[in-house]
């Protein structure tokens, strides 16, 4: 199994890796649950955008950003398994 170099580079960022792992573990997470005391909301949002562009996660629409739900894709499951070794 191989991962795209671009995805590997993306996942070299510890915050992005951690957020992907959290979403994989919980299958789907709301933004307000991710942007907690330990993670700055703007940094979390940036990491989620990168993960979305890499097609490792998807997002549901919501009239309120805090309630947007992020969930893992098949590529996200594969990427998380491979980076965990």
């Amino acid at each position, binding site marked *: 199994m191989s991962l795209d170099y671009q995805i590997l580079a993306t996942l070299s960022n510890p915050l992005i890796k951690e957020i992907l792992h959290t979403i994989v573990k919980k*299958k789907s997470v709301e933004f307000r649950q991710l942007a907690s005391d330990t993670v700055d909301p703007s940094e979390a949002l940036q990491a989620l955008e990168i993960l979305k562009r890499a097609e490792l996660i998807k997002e549901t629409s919501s009239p309120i950003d805090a309630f947007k739900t992020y969930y893992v894709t098949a590529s996200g499951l594969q990427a998380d398994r491979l980076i965990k070794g």
Partner: protein
Amino acid sequence: MLDAEIAAIIALPLSSLIVAIQVTQASNSSLQRAIRGPTLLYFLIVFVGNVFTTFLAAATTSQTIPAGVAPAWFWYAFLGVFGFEAILKNLNLTFAEIGVLSINDWITKAKDAAVADVIEVDVMHKLQMANALAAKLKTLPAHELNAHVSNILGNGQVAALDAAAIAESADPLLMKALALAKGNYKAALAISPN
């Protein structure tokens, strides 16, 4: 009918059971939502593999299975189905220049596709239900909605959600209705107006 053929037929419900357990567990979803195209494709791949290893078990273990404990077809089906994953993971064989390990990768990809599809369906279903409930809760008088938020989500949540609504320039009533619907769906359903 030969024992090996009966065993191959028994592999069908056993494969269904394994795929159902794997997909529902990995997606945290119900079996009802898991019965979809990608899951059926994954099932087909697992079933074909299980039938192959069932025939392999029949061809290689017919002289060594314990007599009188269970019929031969049971042993072949059991060894074939439950041995399939072990064989794929532990043997580094090549068949027609295709590595068995790459077949394992193939199966994993099919499983990931099935699990991700079920997760998506589950997320969309829950979202639809929560949005529909929030639309009803939003029609409650503000003081009543605030009381329910305090009771169901805890003290201090009204102020926190009001502050969050101001920060996002969002409707505070919608913010609280969504928080209730997503925070505790069953309790929120019980207090929703008809």
